[in-house]
């Protein structure tokens, strides 16, 4: 007599794996597009990513159709959800220079349940990418942007500080934010020391009249 293997077949999660794989592919594509903000004008990059957010939403809808009710938490796709949250918050920051709210995320991503932790992971990744952007905008000749990034990331960090994070991956990544801030602060220091930003330029006129003679 042969064994009844129907139980094993019923728990086979092949469909979910396939859906997540497609979803992951879209996210990797979008991140590759977002990478271009470090070298080109980013208004259009941000817009092209926002235009494609619908694809992410579609993947999440597909996923919610096969995931049984209330079983949203799974290691299978949490990384991908985190990276799609990073994508949307980065694109949103680039076009509006503010933090995307959870309500806005919901309206973009639809019904799929997204946990607060996943959202926070996305924000942490945002700070590290912004520290890179601060450096690269200087290279591109934009000396004002790092100052605005600095303000934004510091505000975001103070939000994180209100949380009582326990010993987990999020906590570890939260601890890493300060290194990103340090990097941005160094950029801000370099810019203000040399009076390169437009705000410090107008200030310097008020302070010193004959700096050029030196």
């Amino acid at each position: 007599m042969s064994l009844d293997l129907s139980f094993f077949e019923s728990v086979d999660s092949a469909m979910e794996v396939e859906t997540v794989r497609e979803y992951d592919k879209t996210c990797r594509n979008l991140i590759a597009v977002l990478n271009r903000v470090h070298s080109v004008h980013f208004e259009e990059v941000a817009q092209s990513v926002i235009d494609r957010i619908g694809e992410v939403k579609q993947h999440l809808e597909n996923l919610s159709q096969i995931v049984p009710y209330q079983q949203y938490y799974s290691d299978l796709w949490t990384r991908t959800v985190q990276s799609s949250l990073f994508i949307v918050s980065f694109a949103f920051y680039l076009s509006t220079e503010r933090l995307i709210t959870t309500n806005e995320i919901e309206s973009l991503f639809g019904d799929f349940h997204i946990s607060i932790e996943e959202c926070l992971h996305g924000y942490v990744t945002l700070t590290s990418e912004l520290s890179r952007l601060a450096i690269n905008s200087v290279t591109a000749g934009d000396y004002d942007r790092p100052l605005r990034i600095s303000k934004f990331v510091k505000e975001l960090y103070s939000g994180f500080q209100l949380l009582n994070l326990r010993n987990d991956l999020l906590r570890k990544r939260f601890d890493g934010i300060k290194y990103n801030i340090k990097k941005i602060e160094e950029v801000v220091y370099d810019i203000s020391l040399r009076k390169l930003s437009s705000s410090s330029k107008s200030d310097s006129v008020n302070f010193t009249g004959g700096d050029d003679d030196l």
Partner: protein
Amino acid sequence: MTDTGISGVVYDRRERIIKLSRITHKPLKSILNEATTKRTEIINMFKQVSLDLEGSDFYRYHKSISPAIQEYIEAISFIEYLQNDTLISKEKVDIDFKDEEGSQFLLVTNDDYLLGIADLTGELMRHAINCIGVGDHDRAIKICKFLRDIKSGYDILKIPKRDPLNKKMEIMHQSLIKVEDACYALIIRGSEYPKEFYQHIVSEHAKNFDVEMDTDE
């Protein structure tokens, strides 16, 4: 065992090419000429090895020959960048591994190409840093953009955890950050002095550094 012996020889040659192309004070043209002669030598060695790697033997011994192919791709893609400022295509790499009749005597797998180009980014990082050292700032910034473009290509790939590419991706990321930081420093400090003056400072600093190193010892 013989095939590892042969690829070992090929491997050494490859290193020599790369060392050659690293010498920046030599005029570029003479380096490239030297590289071209070496290139034909190496291709002939690959032809020899290919006799041991026919049919299924290729897949059986691929692990032994693959590093040599990767190194070769790294070298020729660097030459390609120095000459044309572009990324060598997989098709163009394949051409080198075709004989006169146009049939492929050695197969270059997609993985070989990806791993070889990943190594190129490390080489370009060094090149960019050297460019900054000699004051060729525009070129450094150009390389920075080029690296970024290559990396976006790799970002699309889904790389399994155990894949050797995974480690190289990490290194590639570090290289890019290094070049970005160097370009940043260049722009920010470059704003203090005119370019020539800045170059002078760099060379003076390098001299002082050498002196300090000597006195330390």
